[in-house]
């Protein structure tokens, strides 16, 4: 990634857990010039119309393009071409509501505005050790990597298989003497509840940052009380803006029953909420959060740029008396599964490609780490088993978008204007049309 940026080129991190068909869709969409990947994984993708793409394989024997010798490299390295801060630095693909992933373009200015702000916010120093828990295609990793580089700190990459063992994550944090840990609340909750984080000895943590989804208040209170000397931040921002609000979590009132605020403007951005009537939300009002400023993406790859328009997040917030924003919910069908953004429409589109599925509506059940995707389906004939549907999804979607349950109905409930009645489905999912 560093090498690509030094060439003034742009990189596109692809979810290593996503199926080859999706990786290929992304590579076609962004018209990649070269692929860097492990040989076996690359071979599953570089096929057909992508077969001519040069490959730099992690195991160099499989590379189809020459890997320069170290000395050679210095001599012949292309000079860094002079770009502008509006040049593209990287593209992050996220779930798209129409069934096709969309590429969020991030310029150097976008990224640097966030990174410089974030390093100041956590007072990053060269003695720090950051953990990198989020995969590279997930924008949480931008902080870990680049705030560490900016401040001359060290970053320790969490081995992939630790993700399955909360205890291993906690021991990693102690062993690597991590001082700054940034993760989705789901991961932190697992580390506290099942990994023994609060009783682990030898921890050097001084700052814990979380983002991506609301932190359930009971569990956050436990973390806050367990680590009285650690600074904690709740950051907020979709991929299109990176972090655009920040809230420092100090003592949590005993009677607070809703998540802590997402806070106020960050990264040099301006954020405000607009009510349904178009006027700006005042204290006590709810409205959609809008963002403008240096971290706002110029747009999606291959689509019309946003121009100078503020970015509409689709998130509904309430304005607290302190001026902080509190996250309330979504305007649309986008949900979060353990911090990952999921457009329900994309899951539905994948299910509808199954020959036996006539109609599909997907909803969520449960909260926090227990959140699950439940599909309500109408079949043409014999309903296919859940396992078959999971396999079908796995061939088209990243892992966190695979359905957890399938419930077959004669037909899906509809509202009077003919749309799928999602409220009724959400009720059914919550009520135990659910297996336990």
């Amino acid at each position, binding site marked *: 990634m560093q090498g690509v940026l030094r060439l003034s080129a742009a990189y596109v991190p692809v979810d290593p857990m996503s199926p080859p068909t999706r990786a290929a869709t992304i590579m076609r969409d962004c018209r990649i010039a070269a692929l860097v990947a492990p040989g076996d994984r690359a071979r599953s993708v570089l096929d057909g119309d992508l077969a001519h793409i040069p490959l730099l394989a992690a195991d160099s024997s499989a590379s189809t393009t020459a890997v320069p010798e170290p000395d050679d490299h210095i001599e012949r390295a292309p000079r860094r071409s002079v770009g502008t801060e509006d040049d593209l630095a990287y593209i992050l693909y996220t779930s798209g509501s129409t069934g096709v992933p969309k590429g969020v373009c991030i310029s150097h200015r976008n990224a640097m505005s966030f990174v410089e702000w974030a390093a100041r916010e956590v007072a990053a120093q060269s003695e720090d050790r950051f953990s990198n828990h989020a995969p590279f295609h997930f924008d949480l990793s931008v902080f870990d990597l680049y705030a560490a580089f900016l401040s001359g700190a060290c970053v320790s990459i969490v081995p*992939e*298989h630790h*993700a*399955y*063992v*909360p*205890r*291993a994550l906690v*021991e990693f944090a102690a062993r690597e003497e991590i001082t700054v840990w940034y993760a989705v609340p789901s991961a932190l909750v*697992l580390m506290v509840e*099942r990994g023994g984080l609060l009783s682990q000895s030898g921890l050097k943590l001084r700052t814990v940052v979380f983002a991506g989804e609301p932190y359930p208040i009971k569990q956050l209170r436990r973390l806050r009380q367990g680590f009285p000397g650690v600074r904690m931040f709740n950051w907020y921002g979709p991929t299109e803006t990176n972090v655009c609000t920040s809230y420092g979590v100090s003592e949590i009132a005993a009677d607070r029953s809703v998540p802590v605020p997402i806070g106020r403007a960050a990264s040099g951005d301006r954020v405000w909420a607009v009510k349904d009537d178009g006027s700006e939300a005042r204290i006590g009002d709810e409205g959609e959060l809008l963002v403008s400023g240096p971290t706002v993406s110029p747009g999606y790859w291959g689509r019309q740029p946003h121009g100078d328009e503020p970015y509409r997040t689709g998130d509904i917030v309430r304005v607290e008396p302190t001026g902080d924003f509190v996250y309330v919910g979504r305007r649309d069908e986008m949900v979060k599964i353990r911090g990952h953004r999921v457009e329900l429409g994309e899951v539905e589109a994948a299910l509808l490609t199954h020959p036996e599925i006539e109609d599909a509506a997907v909803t969520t059940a449960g909260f926090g*780490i*227990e959140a699950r995707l439940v599909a309500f389906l109408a079949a043409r004939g014999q309903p296919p*088993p*859940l*396992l*078959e549907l*999971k*396999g079908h*999804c*796995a061939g088209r979607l990243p*892992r966190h978008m*695979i*359905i*957890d*349950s*399938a419930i077959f109905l004669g037909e899906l409930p509809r509202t009077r204007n003919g749309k799928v009645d999602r409220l009724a489905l959400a009720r059914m999912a919550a009520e135990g049309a659910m*297996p336990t």
Partner: protein
Amino acid sequence: MTREEMLAELKDFVGRELLDGRDAGLNERTPLLEWGVIDSLSIAELLSFTSERFQIDVPQDEVSPENLEDLDAYVGLLLRLV
């Protein structure tokens, strides 16, 4: 306990607990992680079932994508640990 008995018990557990009570189509080669049959939450359940039912504690280092790829790989691991 034989490999087949172990496999049958695990299949039954995965079907009952993780697949809405139906194990239709589940076999020892079904990709467990790739198809999202198990994830970081249900792995903990699988490990505690393994510990209770077979008295085998899987060490942290062995909880790897390779050993959890499918039931065949997992049973292979358990037999090595016995």
